[in-house]
């Protein structure tokens, strides 16, 4: 279970990026995180991933705090940024192996999962080519395979559908469902409201650093579409 309690973050002691955010994500949750540009989505995701420090509050995953037990927390986590800046000198497979090494995944298991997800994302051939020759979408897929290869309990994704072709986007949605059915938590930010509405069992809307709506998709939206609701409140 991921628990975020009263988390705040200020940049340069001036700009309040997120203010007293509290959320609770349970195993199996597919959580869509929406909000206007600059609302604080990426800041919160990065704070959960341990990439940036936050000023106050607590973030715990299965009892491990990202600030007090960062290594144990990160063992359960995968994070995929919106523009994955992968090591261009490596091949896709070498990059995935590097990530798998960090999580001490056995060769047998990693090869099994690489074959599974690379097949799903049509990356089997490309994985042995240098990342420097990849398109943005291929980098995104490589980062996804690397994230999935250690079977994390929490996956954080920042704008995961940007740059993906329709086939890959479909495969990603299927993978999201499969992973959450197995008990993992997925939290992703997106501007593609239709996808969030159809795919996620829970949503959160953030505006100016504060959560203004949060909960089960059906309850939050009632009989409105997410787009209409978003336009009303954002």
């Amino acid at each position, binding site marked *: 279970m991921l628990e975020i309690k009263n988390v705040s973050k200020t940049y340069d002691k001036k700009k309040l990026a997120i203010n007293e955010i509290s959320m609770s994500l349970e195993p199996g949750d597919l959580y869509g995180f929406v909000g206007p540009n600059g609302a604080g989505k990426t800041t919160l995701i990065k704070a959960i991933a341990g990439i940036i420090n936050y000023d106050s509050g607590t973030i715990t995953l299965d009892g491990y705090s990202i600030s007090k037990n960062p290594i144990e927390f990160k063992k359960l986590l995968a994070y995929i940024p919106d523009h994955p800046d992968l*090591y261009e*000198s490596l091949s896709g497979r070498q990059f995935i192996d590097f990530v798998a090494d960090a999580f001490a995944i056995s060769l047998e298991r990693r090869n099994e999962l690489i074959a599974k997800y690379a097949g799903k994302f049509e990356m089997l051939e490309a994985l042995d080519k240098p990342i420097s020759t990849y398109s943005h979408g291929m980098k995104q897929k490589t980062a996804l395979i690397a994230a999935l290869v250690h079977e994390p309990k929490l996956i954080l994704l920042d704008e995961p559908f940007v740059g993906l072709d329709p086939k890959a986007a479909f495969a990603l949605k299927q993978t999201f469902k499969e992973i959450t059915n197995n008990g993992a938590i997925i939290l992703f930010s997106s501007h593609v409201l239709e996808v969030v509405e159809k795919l996620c069992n829970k949503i959160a809307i953030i505006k100016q650093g504060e959560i203004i709506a949060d909960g089960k998709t059906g309850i939050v939206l009632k009989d409105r579409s997410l787009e209409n609701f978003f336009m009303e409140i954002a």
Partner: protein
Amino acid sequence: MFFKLLRVFFKENFGVRRLFGSKVANSKGRIILFVLLFVYSFLSIGFSSGMMFYTMGLKRELLLYIASYSTGMGFLFALMQANGFLFQFKDYEIIGPLPIKPLTLLLAKLSTMMVFIYIVTFVLTLPLFIVYYIFVPFNLLGFILLLIGYLFFPLPAIILGSFLSLLIARISKNFKRSNLIQTILMFALFLTIFVISMIGGINAEQGSFIPVWVIDAISSV
């Protein structure tokens, strides 16, 4: 994990693709020509400087020149590279969420930077070393002392360069056009060092970074 990180960082920083771009296979001829030109320029400059000392019979001064040259180069490269290598590395979004101890990460980054600096300074000072050993008959003890000196002389300058690199990055971060401010501050620092060295405030003998007694010990072996 340290060695795995090191392997990735080395490949990323020193790989052929990194140095010459992703289209390396299509431009082999141009790359070979570039490398030859580069090697020739540095060898000829280095040899001519070294030969100048050789013809004047200045064995000790040649060592001092090598020491100050490698120290200066170490300082400059640390100043230009340390912030990117150690403090604000662009791959942090990739390695930050991995379960790697910060100390392991820092040591791997530091090792990569040091290897980079030593490789560059070694390439630049190699002709001078060759001239020195044309000049002085090879002596194992002298060579070991020279090697130790070569590894340790630039360290204080590299540390200072790294801190200045961080300081400049921190100061420039507060401005809107941080890249421009960073460039201006770097340029101002280079200019200051250049002016001070020109007016004689810093020279190889007085420079606090180079322990002259070690040079004397090596040259007397």
